[in-house]
C-alpha cells in the first residue's frame, strides 16, 4: 500500500465516520487557546528519550515526528505548519508531570502528544484534565487513564491491556480450538486487566480457565507456578507477564517438556530472537505463538511503507519493533485538526477526536474513538514463532470486553 493511497483511504474513512463534514474557511485569529497562530500550531511531543525504558518510546517518537514532518511538507493543516516542542519524560511519572507542566505553561503548546508507559501517563491525567489540555498518548497502553474515559485523554493506539488479554483468548479459542486454558500473568494492574478481559472472552467462547497463576515481576524461580500449570493439564497456556518472567516460564516449558501450545502477549516477547537465545532450547518453541497489535510482522510487506518512511526520515537509525506504534497517535492528531476546522480550539479538537474512526495502515485494527470511548485500538494478530522463523497466522482477533 502506498502512502498516498493510505492517506486517501484514511481521509475518506475519517470523513465518512464523523458527524461533521470538513468545515470550510481560512485561519483567522484571535485564538482562544495558546499554541496556535495563523501560521503554526504547537504540539508538545514527549516520551522516553533516555533512561532504562528508552526503547519503548524513542523510535515511536521518531515515527510521530516523521508523520508531522510529512504533513508540513505537504502544506500543513489548514495552511498552518506544525511546530513540535520535544521533551524527555524518561517514562517516569514525576518527570512526565514536570514535562507536561513545562510544555503547557512555558512552551504554551496547543495539545500534548506523548507517553509511552502506562504508569507515567496515568500520573499526568489529573493535570491535563484540570487544565483542559488534550493529551493524545503516544504508544502507552494507558488502561488506568482510559477507563473510565475522561474528556481530554485519548490513547491505547496499540491497544489496552484489556485488548491484550481478550485477543489472546479469542485466538486460543478460535484458532487453536482450546477448551481448557492456563494463564500466567503478572500480579499487578496489567495482569488484572489481561485476566479480566481474558475471562470475559473465555466465557463467550465456552472456554475454561483451569489454572490462573499471577507472579510478581521480580520472581526468580517460576517452578511452582509452572508445576501447577503442568498439573492442570491445559490445552493451551497464555503468558502475559513481562519479558523476564516470560523467559523464565519458557525455560520451565523446556525443562518440564510441556507440549501444549504456548501463546504469549506482545509485552512478553519484545524481541523473539532474544527470547530464543535466553531460553537456550529451540524445542521449547515447537508450539509457540505471540500476539502483536501491528498488521503484519515488523518486516512484513504491510509494514514496509512505514519502515521505508522511517529510514528516509532518519537514515542513521535502525527502527526497533516499537517504531510503528508511534505513528497512529500522530495520524489521529492531524486528522482531528483537519476535522476541527480552520480555527480550532482545544474543545473543538477534542470533539473531533471523539468522533475519529480511521485505518492507520500499520495496526491490526482500526482506530475508533467515541463520545464515551478513549481507547483507540482493540485488535491483535498472532504470529507463530518456531525459534527461527516467524509466520503470521490468518485473521485478526478482537477483544469484546469494555471494562466495568
Amino acid at each position, binding site marked *: 500500500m502506498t502512502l498516498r493511497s493510505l492517506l486517501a483511504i484514511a481521509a475518506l474513512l475519517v470523513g465518512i465516520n464523523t458527524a461533521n463534514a470538513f468545515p470550510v474557511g481560512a485561519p483567522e485569529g484571535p485564538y482562544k487557546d495558546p499554541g496556535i497562530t495563523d501560521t503554526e500550531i504547537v504540539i508538545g511531543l514527549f516520551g522516553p528519550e533516555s533512561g*532504562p525504558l528508552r526503547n519503548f518510546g524513542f523510535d515511536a517518537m521518531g515515527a510521530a515526528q516523521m508523520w508531522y514532518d510529512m504533513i508540513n511538507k505537504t502544506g500543513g493543516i489548514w495552511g498552518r505548519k506544525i511546530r513540535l516542542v520535544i521533551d524527555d519524560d524518561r517514562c517516569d511519572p514525576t518527570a512526565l508531570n514536570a514535562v507536561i507542566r513545562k510544555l503547557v505553561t512555558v512552551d504554551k503548546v496547543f495539545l500534548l502528544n506523548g507517553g509511552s508507559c502506562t504508569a507515567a501517563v496515568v500520573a499526568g491525567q489529573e493535570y491535563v484534565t484540570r487544565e483542559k489540555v488534550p493529551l493524545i498518548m503516544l504508544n502507552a497502553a494507558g488502561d488506568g487513564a482510559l477507563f473510565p474515559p475522561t474528556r481530554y485523554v485519548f490513547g491505547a493506539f496499540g491497544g489496552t491491556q484489556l485488548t491484550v488479554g481478550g485477543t489472546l483468548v479469542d485466538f486460543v479459542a478460535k484458532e487453536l480450538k482450546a477448551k481448557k486454558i492456563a494463564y500466567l500473568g503478572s500480579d499487578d494492574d496489567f495482569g488484572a486487566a489481561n485476566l479480566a478481559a481474558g475471562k470475559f472472552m473465555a466465557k463467550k467462547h465456552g472456554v475454561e480457565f483451569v489454572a490462573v497463576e499471577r507472579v510478581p515481576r521480580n520472581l526468580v524461580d517460576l517452578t511452582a507456578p509452572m508445576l501447577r500449570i503442568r498439573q492442570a493439564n491445559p490445552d493451551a497456556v497464555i503468558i502475559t507477564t513481562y519479558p*523476564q518472567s516470560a523467559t523464565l516460564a519458557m525455560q520451565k516449558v523446556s525443562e518440564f517438556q510441556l507440549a501444549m501450545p504456548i501463546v504469549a502477549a506482545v509485552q512478553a516477547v519484545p524481541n523473539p530472537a532474544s527470547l530464543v537465545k535466553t531460553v*537456550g532450547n529451540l524445542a521449547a518453541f515447537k508450539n509457540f505463538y505471540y500476539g502483536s497489535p501491528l498488521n503484519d510482522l515488523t518486516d512484513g510487506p504491510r509494514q514496509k511503507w512505514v519502515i521505508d518512511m522511517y529510514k528516509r526520515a532518519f537514515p542513521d537509525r535502525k527502527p526497533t519493533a516499537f517504531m510503528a506504534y508511534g505513528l497512529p497517535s500522530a495520524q489521529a492528531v492531524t486528522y482531528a485538526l483537519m476535522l476541527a476546522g480552520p480555527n480550532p480550539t482545544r474543545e473543538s479538537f477534542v470533539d473531533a477526536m471523539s468522533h475519529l474512526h480511521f485505518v492507520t495502515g500499520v495496526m491490526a485494527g482500526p482506530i475508533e474513538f467515541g463520545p464515551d470511548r478513549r481507547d483507540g485500538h482493540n485488535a491483535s494478530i498472532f504470529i507463530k514463532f518456531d525459534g527461527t522463523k516467524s509466520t503470521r497466522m490468518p485473521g485478526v482477533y478482537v477483544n469484546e470486553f469494555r471494562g466495568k
Partner: protein
Amino acid sequence: MGLVAQAVASGIVTGAIYALIALSLVILYKSTGAVNFAGGDVVMTACYIALLVLVGFGLPYWLAALAAIAGLFVIGAGFDRLVIARIVRQRHAHNSLVALVIATIGLSDLLKGSVRLFGYTDNVQTLPPQFTGPPLFLGNVILLRQDVGIVGVTCVVMLLLYAFFRFTRLGKGLRATADNPRAAVLIGIPVQRMRMLVWAIACGLGAIAGLLVAPKILMTPDMGVIVILAFAAAVIGGFTNIPGVIVGGFMLGIIENLVGIFISTAAIAVAPFIVIMAVLLLRPQGLFGGNPTFRKV
C-alpha cells in the same frame, strides 16, 4: 509426591544462589560492620562484565568469568579505598553507620547506571550455561545439569571459603580483624588493608554468584533486587553465622516453592518476609545465630 520433590529440588538450586549472595553480605558485615545494599548490583555488574567480554570482545567464557571476578575484586577494593576508608576515618563514629549505608546505596546506583552505558540492557540477557546436556531424571524429578552445577559450585566455593578463613594466615588475620580490630592493630595486623581485602573478596564472591545465576534467573539491570532474598536468608540463618546463613538460603528457596505449590503463587513474594518476621519474633538472633549480645552505650 513428584510435585513436592520437584519443588524441593528446584528450591535447593534457588536456595544455593541465595546462600552464595548472602555469604558475600555476611562476611563483609562480620568483618567491617557494613551492610552492603549494593550486593545485588555487584552480582548484576559481574554478569554484564562477563557479557561484554564474551560478546563485545568475542573472548572465551573462562576469560569472561575471570574478567568479571577480577573486575569486581578491583571494584570492591577500590570502593573501600576511595569511599569506605574515608567514612571510617570520620571522627563522628555514631554517624558512620548511616554514612556506610548511604555509600553502598550510592554504589548500587553507580553500578546500575554504568552497565546501562554498554548497550546490552535493552533486552533480557543471559550467559551461556556451563553445564549442558540432557536433563537428569531422579524418579519423577527433572534436574537440569546447570542446576546440579550451580549447587555443586556453590558448595565448593563455600568449602574453599571455609578453608581460607580457617587455615590460612590471611584468613586468620581477617577473622582477628573482625573479632577485635584494636587487638588486631596491637599485634601488627594492617586492619585497613584487611578491610579492603574483605570488600574485594565479598565483591568477588558476588561475581561468582552472578556467573552462576545469570543462566538461571536471567540478566537485567534490575536483577540486583535478588539481594533482598539474600538478606532474608541471612536473617533467617543468623546474620553473623556463616553455616546458618547457608542453611537459611537453602531453606528460603525450598519454602518459596512449597508456598507456591500449596498456598498460592501470589504468596511466594511475601513468604520470605513472613518467615523473617516469625524468626525475628521467636529467635531474633536467627535460627543458627548465637545468643544476642548487648553493648552499653
